[in-house]
């Protein structure tokens, strides 16, 4: 890792947004993560992938400050992570929407917890709702929305607090394929407009390649960084037909060859 960084060419590297240094974590007798080192650059889209139970979600939760690491150090920007901080937003696999709140109230929720006053809260939530394409659904309850729309609410809630870092835990896992592809393109569009640092946990190789600048492959339990893969596909990817190119197929296949050996 350190050696690789010394070979970075003349253009100065983007500042490090997230640094995970020698992080280990055990749950009782089960070792989940061992000596994990990951550096995420500011504005980078990075995916974590690996076999089931490799600890990728645990790693995300450690970065989010939701789970404490046993050893090692995590910093987000200048802040050493001891708990949840204001520069991160999390998008959850099961959406984690308040079933008793409308879309508007759900998107306002993060702002409410961070002490933003009511008028500004409503305004920022409305803007975030429009940004994810849900304008007009402010008064709907989550149960009235499809899975894809519910996750858009989850994304709007995450964006409403204007985080620098977006942590996404298998956000598309419980969404059907067609909806997922449209949603992925919308996410890329939002990301290129707002230039947030994104860490995405996924088990889909196509998704990892399609979205990311780099893919971190974790080994099975206990999770370690097995390999870091660059994805040199040109951007913007959401406009063209990147999935149909030979280069895309080659990258997915390369990722599959790595993962297959890890099973």
């Amino acid at each position: 890792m350190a050696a690789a960084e010394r070979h970075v060419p003349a253009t100065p590297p983007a500042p490090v947004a997230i640094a995970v240094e020698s992080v280990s974590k055990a749950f009782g007798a089960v070792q989940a993560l061992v000596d994990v080192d990951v550096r995420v650059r500011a504005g980078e889209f990075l995916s974590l992938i690996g076999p089931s139970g490799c600890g990728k979600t645990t790693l995300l939760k450690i970065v989010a400050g939701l789970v404490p690491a046993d050893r090692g150090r995590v910093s987000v920007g200048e802040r050493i992570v001891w708990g949840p901080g204001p520069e991160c937003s999390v998008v959850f696999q099961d959406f984690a929407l308040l079933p008793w709140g409308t879309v508007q109230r759900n998107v306002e929720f993060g702002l409410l917890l961070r002490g933003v006053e009511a008028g500004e809260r409503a305004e920022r939530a409305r803007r975030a709702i429009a940004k994810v394409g849900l304008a007009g659904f402010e008064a709907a309850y989550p149960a009235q929305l499809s899975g894809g729309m519910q996750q858009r609410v989850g994304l709007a809630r995450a964006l409403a607090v204007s985080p620098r870092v977006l942590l996404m835990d298998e956000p598309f896992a419980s969404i059907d394929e067609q909806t997922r592809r449209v949603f992925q393109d919308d996410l890329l569009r939002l990301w290129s407009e707002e230039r947030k640092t994104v860490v995405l946990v996924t088990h889909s190789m196509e998704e990892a390649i399609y979205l990311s600048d780099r893919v971190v492959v974790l080994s099975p339990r206990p999770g370690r960084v097995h390999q870091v893969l660059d994805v040199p596909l040109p951007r913007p990817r959401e406009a063209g037909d990147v999935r149909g190119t030979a280069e895309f197929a080659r990258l997915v296949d390369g990722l599959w060859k790595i993962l297959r050996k890890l099973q």
Partner: protein
Amino acid sequence: MTLAALVGLAIGWELLGRLDVSLFVPPLSRVAATWWQLLGDGTLARAAASSLASLAKGFVPAAALGVAVGLAMGRFAVVRHLLDGWVNALMSAPLSALVPVLIALFGVRDTVVAATVFMFSFFVVVVNTQTGVRATDRSLVDMARAFGAGEVALFGRIYLPAALPAVMLGLRLGAVQAVKGMVVGEMLISLVGLGERLIYYGNTFLITELYAVILSVLALALLIAQAAQAADRALVRWK
């Protein structure tokens, strides 16, 4: 459907009463007339006022304290381990067996009726609240914490609303239990209110009056259950 069943029951009762099968089955029309008379001379109102006062004095603290204890037990394992055994034992114990203890503690006044109401309704509120809190979606808690929620915000914004349907169910069941506790207390211990009337008319073989009071108690129980259900629907609209 329910209405048809009630009307059928009423007609059957009336016919059976007219046939004069037993002293213990007066026709419904006569019971109704007696009920009207007891209402007119203030007997029912006086008895019901005393009963309702005991009901409120017992159930309001049982509900408030029950929700508080249930929340604490649901949220904190220490509290749960400390109280679980007691709650389970007292919930399944035949509460009438505790009546002598209650007499010793509160004497033979209406306070003891309120205490009986409390004992009958408290535990079901505790258990339901606790269940609701423990069933709270884990990822909602993570979500709130990720946005910086502390313990107070978690309680007010996640655990309490998530547990609300279960809390309301507990309060509904608790209200019904409270009416039972009220009647038991008034009949077995204190001889006040509607329970006293039941004992009095029963002992003096005023069967028509007895039925009039029984029907009043049933109506009261039904009314309270309906009110609780309406409150439930108003509060838990999102279900």
